[in-house]
């Protein structure tokens, strides 16, 4: 008879995991959920899509016969001026566009977090590193990126091949010119965190700086970094498509959405859909990523969460 209440005491309710709390807050943000759904669909479409939609490769003569077709059952998005299936090209291009966005963001975030942590933790390096960040912020990015692509494209292409070369160059160029925001955010957080008692406690028992940073500081800067990373993906995708749009991005046989839009521009008056599809894809991706970033910002902020 006395069993039941005792058991209830012995089995206390597990504290809610912080990730669950974050997720439940994230779910209340309608835009963020919408963004997550759209982005997941887009990623699935470009990753799994090519396996589901794999039209036979047309010979040149056959392709010439089906140039500029309107959407049909055989070509759901029509064909381009060389008789290539637009749906297939959109999926290939999307894969590259999204890959550029994620890889460039990863480079920027890793570098930015590193600079931010070092500047925030070591007082001596703070001044110089932040001056460097300010200087990078004053660089005219688009002109500089265009110059970098113009000057290094052919040389890198001759070493790594045109496709991998263009990818490496553009990802690297975008990465090293967009780490500044992350560095600033992380530095601010680290400056506040390193004065906390638990860091003091760790230091007083003789923990080495690298251990304090890895174990006590980095886990606490994860949330601002995640927000910066989401917004960084959107930024990188837009920057890449600007480069491609100006004709200084990826080669036409290895397209991105920006490149498809650039190729479609000449046929804009006759076949506007060739511009609209890639443009819509870029806009939707960026819009959903921005909404996700918005939702994450709210969800990761414990002051807003639970209200």
């Amino acid at each position, binding site marked *: 008879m006395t069993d039941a209440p005792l058991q209830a005491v012995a089995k206390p309710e597990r504290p809610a995991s912080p990730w669950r709390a974050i997720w439940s807050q994230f779910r209340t943000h309608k835009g963020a959920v919408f963004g997550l759904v759209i982005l997941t669909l887009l990623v699935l479409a470009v990753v799994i899509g090519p396996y589901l939609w794999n039209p036979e490769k047309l010979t040149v003569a056959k392709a010439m016969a089906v140039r500029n077709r309107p959407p049909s059952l055989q070509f759901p998005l029509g064909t381009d001026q060389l008789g290539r299936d637009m749906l297939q090209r959109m999926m290939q291009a999307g894969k590259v566009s999204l890959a550029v966005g994620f890889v460039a963001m990863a480079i920027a975030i890793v570098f930015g977090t590193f600079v931010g942590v070092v500047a925030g933790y070591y007082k001596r390096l703070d001044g110089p590193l932040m001056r460097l960040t300010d*200087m990078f912020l004053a660089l005219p990015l688009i002109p500089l990126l265009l110059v*970098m692509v113009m000057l290094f494209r052919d*040389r890198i292409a001759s070493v790594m091949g045109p496709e991998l070369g263009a990818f490496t160059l553009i990802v690297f160029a975008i990465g090293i010119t967009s780490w500044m925001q992350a560095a600033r955010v992380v530095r601010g957080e680290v400056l506040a965190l390193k004065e906390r008692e638990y860091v003091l406690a760790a230091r007083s028992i003789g923990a080495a700086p690298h251990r304090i940073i890895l174990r006590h500081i980095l886990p606490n800067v994860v949330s601002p970094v995640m927000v910066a990373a989401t917004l960084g993906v959107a930024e990188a995708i837009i920057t890449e498509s600007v480069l491609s749009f100006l004709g200084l991005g990826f080669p036409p046989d290895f397209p991105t959405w920006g490149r498809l839009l650039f190729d479609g521009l000449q046929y804009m008056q006759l076949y506007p859909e060739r511009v609209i599809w890639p*443009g819509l894809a870029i806009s939707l991706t960026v*819009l959903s990523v921005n909404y996700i970033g918005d939702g994450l910002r709210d969800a990761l902020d414990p002051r807003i969460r639970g209200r």
Partner: protein
Amino acid sequence: MLTFTLRRLLIAIPTLLFISLVIFLLVDLAPGSPLSEIPLTVPPEVRQKMMAALGADQPVFVRYLLWLRQFFIVEPAYLLDGWFGTDLAGDQQRILSWQSRAPVFTVIGQRLPQTLTVIGTAYLVGVLIALPIGIYSAYRQYSAFDQLGTLFAMIGFSVPTFFSGTLFIIIFAVWLGWFPTKYDTQLQVTDWASFLEQLRQMALPVMTLGLANAAVISRYMRSSMLENMTQDYVRTARAKGMSERTVVLKHVLRNSLIPVVTVIALGIPSIFGGAIITENLFGVNGIGAALILAINASDLPMVQTLAFIFAVLIVLFNLIADVLYGLLDPRIRYD
């Protein structure tokens, strides 16, 4: 305030030197630079002469200093000569464009008015749209208007100008035929008809850039208004029995505009960057189009100069924004 301004000016100098060094080295060390393009069949002594003629046999820092001298001393001297008819520059070497053989600054001077007319109008229109939207969204927070404004801003953030511009061309120029698809640089405004024509051809680029800018600025205006709406002085003003109009448009708006003004100042250089896309899309013959033309023609002096001018603009407007902030907000005194 004066000391602060002077100090900021002094900090701007190393920043500009760093940027100029980055731009110089990037172009100078690049494998695609013209000196690496000299064919191998050219005999060594001729190659040596070619390098000497281009000044390329000097060490890097000498070339860098010479380039700086051209940029900061020789070119301004020519500018002053042009204005006042003096002869400061003598016949020193100017920065010459490789594609046209004309001085780079002459080309820029010819193209700058186009950029300023179109891009400047676009920014102005953007600000004029953004401010009322921001004010009203904040005044009626979470109303239908505010939700709509938020959606508008999110779309404005996310749709890149090259796509919105293309859409506008397809809708308004191709389907509806209201506006021309391309900007006619040759058009001279002489009478009423040509002025209307100018307005019509400016409409699409101005709309494209203006909407993108309006999205950003309206967000700042809204959040700044929201911050001020809950302040004590607003309650005081209401308690004194002032009309809602006076409270919002005088007391709150004035204080809310302070950060927005700096944001507007900070945005000016970035619109020159964004203008590269719009100018190319609509065929406006401005400096953004000049940059792309120069890049496609491997015209390095032009590219270097334009990139550096963009950097100068960024640093300059950062400085202006900082000083403006101090001037407008008496709580912020840097010294």
